[in-house]
């Protein structure tokens, strides 16, 4: 199948983010992923909450719903369950998904509804001009924390797994290629695919990801995980991850007798969460930050189970319409 033209996926509305905002790159990656997978525009529904990132649907040439703050997961759940043949993309921010929308977020994950949840994590409330969010680092000074926050942040991947998530991936806005590839993986995965995008807000949180994005150092500071491949990283592909008791450690291949064979092989499909959690929790400088698909476990998904249950019941019942129902059970005639 020939891949579709990227511009099919664009709407005629002007894109209104600040110049330099990471959101632009993600938008482009979404266009590309959809085009490369050739999903018909009419079969796509893009649903969001409120936030800078949540303006996303207006820029799509697909069906789109710009919801209310925090409710993207709930609205998109309704869309998918009502109309399961749609490819549903949920666009949300760290405030939208993890502050006001935290409940719907953990529940859509628990239910494993088949959609792609793209979480723009800029560690700030952008749209309301710079208050801290549930992912802002402890001590962050923002408009609403002039003396620094006193709250530990969520790690979105950890919360996804805590809510029984089956798919979690992490990408960085600047890397459109990586984003495109991972969005395609997310779309292919049946069930809820949560993708955390490390997104730069040039206005209120400029540079928070510079450390891991640094052009020269990023191959040492990021590890791009691929299913079934060894967990190797570094400029010279000479670093890797190994087990150390119940923990992970970074080792250098070729030193202390360590060879490539000693390095852990990534198994995204493993249902057990232990290793995935450990990977998600890796933080620089001690560890590289894990990018790519960290977890992708096949599991039945809610929308499909609903369809099946309805089918099963309907196969057995004699009640086929409302008249049947009205006349079932205890009915009597008055003559």
């Amino acid at each position, binding site marked *: 199948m020939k891949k579709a033209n990227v511009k099919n996926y664009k709407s005629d509305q002007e894109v209104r983010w600040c110049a330099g905002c990471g959101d632009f790159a993600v938008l482009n990656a979404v266009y590309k992923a959809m085009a490369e997978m050739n999903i018909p525009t009419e079969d796509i529904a893009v649903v969001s909450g409120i936030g800078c990132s949540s303006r996303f649907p207006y820029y799509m040439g697909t069906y789109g719903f710009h*919801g209310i703050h925090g409710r993207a997961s*709930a*609205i998109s759940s309704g869309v998918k369950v009502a109309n399961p043949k749609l490819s549903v993309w949920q666009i949300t921010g760290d405030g939208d998904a993890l502050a006001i929308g935290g*409940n719907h977020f953990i529940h859509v994950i628990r239910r494993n509804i088949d959609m792609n949840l793209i979480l723009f994590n800029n560690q700030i409330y952008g749209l309301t001009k710079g208050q801290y969010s549930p992912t802002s680092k402890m001590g962050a000074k923002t408009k609403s924390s002039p003396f620094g926050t006193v709250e530990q942040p969520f790690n979105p991947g950890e919360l996804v797994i805590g809510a029984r998530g089956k798919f979690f991936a992490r990408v960085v806005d600047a890397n459109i290629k990586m984003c495109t590839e991972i969005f395609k993986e997310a779309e292919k995965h049946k069930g809820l695919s949560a993708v955390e995008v490390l997104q730069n807000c040039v206005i209120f949180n400029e540079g928070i990801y510079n450390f891991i994005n640094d052009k020269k150092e990023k191959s040492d500071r990021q590890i791009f995980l691929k299913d079934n491949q060894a967990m190797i990283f570094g400029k010279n592909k000479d670093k890797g991850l190994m087990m150390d008791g119940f923990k992970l450690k970074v080792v250098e291949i070729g030193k202390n007798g360590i060879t490539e064979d000693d390095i852990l092989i990534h198994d995204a499909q493993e249902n057990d969460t232990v290793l995935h959690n450990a990977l998600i929790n890796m933080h620089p400088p001690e560890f590289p930050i894990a990018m790519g698909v960290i977890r992708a476990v096949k599991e039945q998904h809610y929308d499909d189970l609903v369809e099946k249950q309805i089918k099963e019941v*309907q196969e057995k019942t004699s*009640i086929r319409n409302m008249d049947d129902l*009205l006349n079932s059970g205890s009915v*009597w005639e008055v*003559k």
Partner: protein
Amino acid sequence: MSKKIDTIVLEEVVIKFSGDSGDGMQLTGTQFSNTSALIGQDVSTFPDYPAEIRAPQGTVGGVSGFQLNFGSKAIKTPGDFADVLVAMNPAALKANARWIKEGGTIIIDSDTFNKKNFKKAEFKSEKPFEELKLEDRNIIQAPISFLTKETLKGMGMTTKNVLRSKNMFTLGIIYWLFNEPLDLSINFFKKKFKKLPKVAKANEMALRAGFNYAGTVEALPRNYKVAPASIEKGFYRNVSGNVATAWGLIAGAERADLNLFIGSYPITPATEILQELTARKDLGVKAFQAEDEIAGICTAIGASFAGNLGVTTTSGPGLALKGEAIGLAVITELPLVIVNVQRGGPSTGLPTKTEQSDLMQALYGRNGESPAVVIAATTPSDCFYYAYEACRIAVEHMTPVILLTDGFLANGAEPWRIPKMDDLPKIKPPFAKIGEKYLPYKRELEKLNRKWAVPGTKGLEHRIGGLEKMEITGNVSYVPENHEVMSKQRAEKVKRVENFIPELKIYGDEDAHLLIVGWGGTYGHLLTALNEMRKDGKKVALAHFNYIFPLPKNTFDVLSKFKKIVIAELNLGQFANYLRMNFPSLEYLQYNKIQGLPFTVVELKENFNKILEAK
């Protein structure tokens, strides 16, 4: 030894079954009313759960009741006061003492009237009837527990299980008292306990024993007969308000050729609607038990966007939580039905009790100028029709519709002539045409609705959302004048629903001295009060509202014909204020009650008579 029995023919009787939560009074009441309905009497029932949680056995807090009113005439309420009270223990007697008619009959299980139970029920003495000033009632002390045990001796059942049939022994007594047939209940046992024939048998035996006991003992020197009511011909079934609501929603979706999607969170007294819809997988209903009320409505909005008929159901506190999202449905102009089963507020309030205090919330409980249609059902069975109406209006006018019922309607039940689906008006969703350029906020001339373009349809791709939209194109717009245009169009669209609903009718005298005004679930009581007053020779009329926003077009014309208007509602005067604000030139009196209970016909008549007499 056969005795002479007088059979007295009655027009109408109120029975209240009461006992501990575990005594099976709800089942007993349902059995009696089913039998009564099946033999053609008219019935109205009202279960009365004490509080949400089981209180310790034997206490007043733990009493569960089931009241029913049946008769050979049209029955519109479950009755104010009981002709017959069944009290399975002292607590039940105490809890219901005030609801027994002068000259009424009280049947007790005398085996439970002992010291221990008097204490649990917090009687001060061991003379419960004196303490409650009920000595003059017709008291029948039947050793029901003992006789049930005797009857079922030798069945090889545990005492606990044997005592479960106490209620059927009691039912037998009542069947005898009113000359009702046993076979319908016996068939019910057989069906229900198909896999437990011993239980079916035990229930049957207890029922017959009670019946025979009543026919034998001296205590009941006569029995009564209630003739069948002369009701319209056709097929009937019993239905409660909540089930009728659920079915009306399914019917609405079916006649609109839409899939029904319900997103809801359980809450008393609305939960049964969700439960019934969850069970209706046979009809393809998609029921989504959400994590909370907000998710409930938001999934329903998503479903409507995706081309289903989205519905959400709740009660007061849940409606408060849904306010913000109702606004989203208002501005996105999607069809959505919100059912609110009112209960006692504010806050958690009296969660199992009935009230009409969510009217203002339904009208105004969200930010901005946010008009949504508000309608109300009036009887358990017409919950079906108003749920259907809610679907019709939501779909054809592309608007959220709030349907108000209440705890009284929700749990109450009555016989209902089964409608045919073909007799209901077809519902026509205003789908956008394929092939034409789709402009999401282009309005149709008559109703001002926008058109509905369902995801999955090629060529109709579009975006909607909560920000103000440019008229016609639907693009985000901050243009000041456009906001005014859109605000007015949204208001006008809802206003025009008045062209698609029936006019307001008057019951009673066109030249009445007093117009009684009501809305929603008080209909039965108001109508009964009206009829009784008219029998007493008073000139009165009733205007009862189902359509609240917008009001029927002829409302002012109707109201302004009457000199005196009294608005009776179960709150502190919300509909009265609403009418004042719509028609300030008229004068409105009020009769309000806010006790978690329905009106009684007696208090209504008393108050209306006072108003009639006043200068």
